[in-house]
């Protein structure tokens, strides 16, 4: 049994998947209270599914990019669960989870995942198909991304960043998929495990920030 944790955006998600695919899940408005909402959500999903934590043999977590505090709450929780259970962690990115939701919904073409990066920037990655990453995650201003994607009518744009900056993505096909979903997260992680991808040890799980911490930026600018 795979337990997935999604806290990289405003919502808190938890889902379970077994060999047949996603089995149970919950998706809540977390506000900025990820650390309060997540543990009870995990207990709720396990309870509703009639699954005990002892049956969980891998934990999947969205490592970002996205909300720093949300990601840290999710990663620390995944680390604690995996350490306590003696199992490994499948790290997935928010941008890959967003793309997966588009493919699960039947889209077959290329996908541009755009996550709100705050401070006038977005996190972006491009996928040419369900398992093909064409452009790895990076951070840039929405206007620069708009220029890069201009005329790409074959693309489906997903993610909260596209909704935050609608003017930048005018003329492109923007899907309603806004937040990475726990269901897409466990589906993606389960496929990775089935494909032979080895989970990482609890202590080795790392958030994907894609931005230097504040103070270091100030230091460089001083």
């Amino acid at each position, binding site marked *: 049994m795979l337990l997935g944790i999604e806290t990289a955006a405003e919502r808190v998600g938890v889902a379970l998947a077994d060999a047949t695919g996603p089995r149970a899940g919950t998706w809540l408005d977390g506000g900025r209270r990820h650390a309060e909402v997540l*543990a009870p959500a995990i207990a709720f999903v396990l309870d509703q599914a009639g699954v005990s934590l002892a049956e969980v043999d891998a934990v999947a977590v969205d490592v970002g990019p996205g909300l720093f505090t949300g990601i*840290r709450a999710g990663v620390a929780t995944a680390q604690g669960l995996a350490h306590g259970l003696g199992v490994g962690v499948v790290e997935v990115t928010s941008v890959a989870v967003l793309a997966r939701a588009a493919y699960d919904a039947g889209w077959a073409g290329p996908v541009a995942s755009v996550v709100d990066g705050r401070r006038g920037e977005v996190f972006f990655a491009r996928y040419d198909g369900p398992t093909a990453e064409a452009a790895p995650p990076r951070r840039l201003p929405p206007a620069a991304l708009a220029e890069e994607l201009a005329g790409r009518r074959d693309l489906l744009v997903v993610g909260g960043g596209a909704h935050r900056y609608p003017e930048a993505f005018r003329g492109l096909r923007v899907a309603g998929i806004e937040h990475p979903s726990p269901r897409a997260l466990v589906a993606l992680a389960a496929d990775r495990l089935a494909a032979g991808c080895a989970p990482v040890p609890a202590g080795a799980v790392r958030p994907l920030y894609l931005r230097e911490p504040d103070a270091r930026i100030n230091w460089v600018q001083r």
Partner: protein
Amino acid sequence: MNLLGIETSCDETAAAVVAEGRVVRSSVVSSQIDLHARYGGVVPEIAGRAHVELLMPAVAEALAGAGIERPDAVAATYGPGLIGSLLVGLSAAKALAMSWDVPFVGVNHLEGHLFAPVIEEPALEWPLVVLLVSGGHTLLVLAKGPGHYRLLGQTIDDAAGEAFDKVARFLGLGYPGGPAIDRVAKEGDPTAFRLPRALMDGGYDFSFSGLKTAVVRTVERHPEAATADLAASFQAAVVDVLVAKAAKAVRDLGAAGLCLGGGVAANSLLRARAPEAVDVPTYVPSLAMCTDNAAMVAAAGAWRLANDGPSPLSLGPDPNLAFPATP
């Protein structure tokens, strides 16, 4: 009963196993001082990131050090402190407790400090006056026993440790300021400059921002002043106030003992002067128990668990958590 404690409220990533509420089986502290030193203070985002990397190794080391695979309960600090740091330890602690199917309990960091003497002093007698001084807090507390506290006074501006950091930075002594000033002051004359002792005649509240300003003005007036004399005069002023108020509280309230706690309790002048100022026993914690650690959190957690039961899994980090005074 073995309890795993986790502390990530500021810039120390700590895990410890404490048995029967007071026997330290292991205590691991991964200090981030080197990461923050170049900025002259704790950078919240850097601290939060470091906790994520340092916590699981600290937990593994604490369990191995105690020779156990899993504890009987897990405690973690949930405030006060830096929110991005608190939520790392708190989230991990809840997850560990769930995965081991053992109780979880949240701990007030300030109450954690009050358990340092419980761990280290078998002959501890209550009521105690506790002087809790660090970079984040300056509190004078009357502790009638575990869980029964009266807040007598606190700083109205800077914390004592914050004053040490700011003055050390101003004097070019580096970070952290407490040990730097303590070291340099040993070569200086504490009577070289007359610096203010704020609120000496008032109640139990403290104020240190005027003292910092006075050091700046003294240097303006005496550019030739020796750094050692300035450091010694500053340190003497801080310690005079801390000791005078603590001693007054012991006398006024008839306490059976005085206890020091927090990072500033590592200061050598404070450690020497406090016992001389009172005629009751003074409990001066070891240096490792003065600074933030998880053993004190585990001890406080064991007491809270026994008296109040487990905390809900919905417990969130509270950066401004108040001192747990009892009516």
